[in-house]
């Protein structure tokens, strides 16, 4: 288990205007995999390095298991090499002057609990076997491909059976096909060993695929956290909704509240939406609609369609994205069928799917103070 309280880190320097990590509270239950997800520069790596002990925090406490790892207030700081961790670095950090198996043996021979050569080699081979690299054991590390090096680095992090596994964008240097394979491998090994894991990524699909829980970060703070499917299905914050790729957003007003669901009136019509928080009747909301939840048809058979015209389309291989102008907003609709044969200027009806759009309370409208707050956060 990892427990983090009020973690704060500011890098020194004249040009630094804000904390890289700004008061993070987090607990990661035993045996779970939690991803830190957020845009570039939001402080994911810094958080991970603080947990690993590679950076010293300015404030806050970190516990691994029941042991206090660091508490600047009390002057406690356990060095990296005394922490029960395994780290996989973004750049792999596989030592080029050693073979694969020597890399994996290193923690067993140089770490806190040391063992003899034969025992270390046996355990290292087990770890290599687990990541499917046993046959490459005696290759010099630089003679391995990127994906193989990444798996060596995973095996190395796991051999000494750490309490906690820390992964910093472990897949970002791999090509698309390999990324999926290594990702599945990491998840399966993690679940098999039941090891508490922090996984840093900026890719929402990757995060959804591997995590028990997703922590969304921005500007060094936690925006929201939750189970992968909840974060995907019904994000609570606009930032999350946008970051998860829900690109259509329309202003609306709550007509009728209800349990988890509300009837919202929009400029073009009414829509039943999910509501992550209680939405009082009459309050202003922003409605986020996934492109896949907007269907296009030439005829308005259901009577709920919004009339618009096609602006342009983009082909993605397995789907088409149509950009349709409805009134003065541009909506994106994703169609997984064969090309519907729509071209620029064609009139079309946009039919929103019920009960999948998300209505999030509009903070700008809610209070003037919030307006200033928001402006500031964008200005940064």
């Amino acid at each position, binding site marked *: 288990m990892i427990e983090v309280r009020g973690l704060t880190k500011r890098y020194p320097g004249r040009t630094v205007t804000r904390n890289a990590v700004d008061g993070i509270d987090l607990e990661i239950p035993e045996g779970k995999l939690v991803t830190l997800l957020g845009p570039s520069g939001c402080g994911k790596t810094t958080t991970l390095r603080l947990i690993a002990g590679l950076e010293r925090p300015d404030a806050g406490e970190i516990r691994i298991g029941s042991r206090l790892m660091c508490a600047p207030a009390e002057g406690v700081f356990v060095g990296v090499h*005394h922490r029960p961790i395994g780290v996989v670095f973004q750049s792999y950090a596989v030592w080029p002057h050693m073979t694969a198996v020597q890399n994996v043996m290193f923690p067993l021979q140089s770490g806190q609990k040391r063992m003899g050569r034969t025992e270390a080699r046996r355990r290292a081979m087990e770890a290599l076997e687990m990541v499917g690299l046993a046959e490459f054991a005696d290759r010099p590390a*630089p003679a391995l491909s990127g994906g193989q090096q990444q798996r060596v680095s995973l095996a190395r992090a796991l051999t000494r059976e750490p309490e906690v596994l820390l992964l910093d964008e472990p897949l970002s240097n791999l090509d698309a096909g390999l990324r999926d394979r290594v990702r599945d491998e990491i998840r399966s090994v993690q679940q098999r060993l039941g090891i508490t894991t922090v996984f840093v990524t900026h890719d929402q699909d990757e995060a959804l695929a591997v995590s028990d829980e997703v922590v969304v970060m921005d500007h060094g703070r936690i925006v929201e956290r939750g189970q992968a499917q909840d974060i995907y299905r019904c994000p609570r914050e606009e930032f999350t909704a946008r970051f998860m790729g829900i690109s259509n957003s329309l202003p609306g007003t709550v007509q009728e509240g209800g349990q988890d669901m509300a009837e919202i009136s929009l400029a073009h019509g009414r829509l039943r939406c999910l509501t992550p928080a209680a939405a009082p009747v009459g309050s202003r909301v922003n409605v986020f609609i996934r492109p896949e939840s907007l269907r296009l048809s030439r005829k308005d058979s259901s009577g709920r369609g919004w009339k618009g015209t096609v602006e342009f389309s983009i082909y993605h291989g397995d789907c088409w994205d149509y950009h349709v102008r409805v009134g003065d907003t541009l909506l994106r609709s994703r169609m997984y069928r064969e090309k519907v044969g729509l071209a620029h200027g064609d009139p079309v009806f946009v039919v929103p799917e019920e009960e999948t759009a998300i209505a999030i309370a509009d903070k700008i409208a809610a209070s003037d103070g919030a307006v200033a707050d928001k402006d500031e956060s964008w200005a940064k």
Partner: protein
Amino acid sequence: MSLISRSRPAPPPALADPRRPARSTQGLRGWFRDPRNLLLAVVALVVAYLAIVPAATMGVASLQSQFLSTGPVHWTFRHYTETLGTADFWTLVGNSFGYAAATAVISTVIGFGLAYLVARTDTPAKFFAQVAALVPLIIPGILNTVAWALLFAPHTGALNVLLRDVHLPAFDIYSLAGMVLVQSMHVTPVAFLMGTAAFSQMDSSLEEAALASGAPPLRVFRTITARLIRPAVLSAVLLMFVQTISTFEVPQLIGVPGRTFVFVSRIYNALQAFPTDYGTVGVIGVFILVVATLGLWLSRRLSGPGAGVQTISGKGYRPTVTELGRWRWLGLAAFVLFFVVAVALPLLMLVWSSLLPGYEPPSWSALHHLTLSNYREIWHTPGLVDSVRNSLITAVLAGAVVTVLSSLVAYITVKTKARGRGLLDGLATIPLAVPSVVMGVGILYWYLSMPLPVHLYGTLTILVIAFVTIGLPYGLRYIVPGMAQIKDELEEAAAASGASWPRTFWRIYVPLLVPSLAAAFLYTVIVAFREISAAIFLYTQGTQVVSVTIYQQWSNGSYPVVAALGVVIVVFLAMIVAIVRLLTRRFGLNRQ
């Protein structure tokens, strides 16, 4: 053919002008029609001439029964059997190796130790070490040697006086230990620079991974840091060794008075003797050459697996800084000590002796004798002003030639796919492995023995040739990276606008390369200005350069004038170095 999908446009066609494709098929004549191929041929010939001639001449001289004589000449191994058979030669080998090896190890250990403190720890006031690293560029070796000889002169040396005052035995600088001390102080800053580069380019996540594996910091240093830095250490040791074994000033000024001979001083003194034994000199020269080449080859071999691997990664790279806690004051002490010993002592000694009519150790009473007369004396010393002018002329000419030549070599090796460019690249680096005494003696032999139409011996041209050869690898070091940063598209866009190749080179490459060109030029000027190890064999009456004059004045015992001249030169070179630094920083030398 797809024009858009190609991710990187093909390099400019090397074999043919695209506008006249039909002619490219005419074999050799077609090959020469492209101005770039003609250029390649010319540049390759020039570089080959510069690089191979000195070493080859040396080899020939060592294998001929007579050199430079009118009698019949035949090939023989006599010089080898005679020279290698004497005990004297092997004493010479022992001395030379002991001297060079000790210097190489000491300077590398100190240099890399300081580099580690600067690049990887939180030791305060790194400024001292960084300033000290600039010194070898500023103080010519001959002046450094003179300064140390003054500091440790047996009876009157300032430091020996000090030692005697505290009842310690005086240090005899005229010994092997003295040679090692002086030469180490002179080359340590170079090792420091190499170490700084190596430590700050190392991907620190490799060390962090070891820490995160549970290894304690000292063990991480031993198993990861030290191991990854090994190739850099080896190449530094080797470079120091080759430099030390091939430079003139310390062996001659410090070694010879104490009757400790090494290769260089033996060659020099053999050439002063009459009749000159060219064969033996040739044998010693070839021996040095072989040792230097072997050393270079060895360093490549020894660096072992992982040596050629880039340990520099882009994303996620952060240099980690080890916190030393209270120990950092010890680090600071090391900086200050190094600064004092390598910079302050020799410089202060020069300034002090330049202000006295005759040398005396620093004391209150000596203060009354302070005078600027030595600086006036510089103008009245015969030949001195001439030698300064000679130095300036040769250094500037060499700088210009090196700049032009190395930008052409860089263009051919970096930007074209012409056949033979690998060979050119190899040729241009040969001078690195040729010790400068071999360069000097080889060039001397060549121009003495060759029936060339123009007589170059005894002219400044021969000095320029030597300086160009010595400076070429350094010029390339500045220009190749600059050239590599210029995108191919820029040349292609010019060609597509209809510009001829020479015009493209002049209008596109030259302006973009200005910072690199300027740095290469100024650096070569400095190198040539300080050079003595080759120049000492090549000057004649009337073509003395300033380093040679300093040596002669020193031999005549005019220490105060030497010191005054030294101070002037140091100030002059310091200004050039400041300009180079400003240029390289201003333009970053890494414009995309």
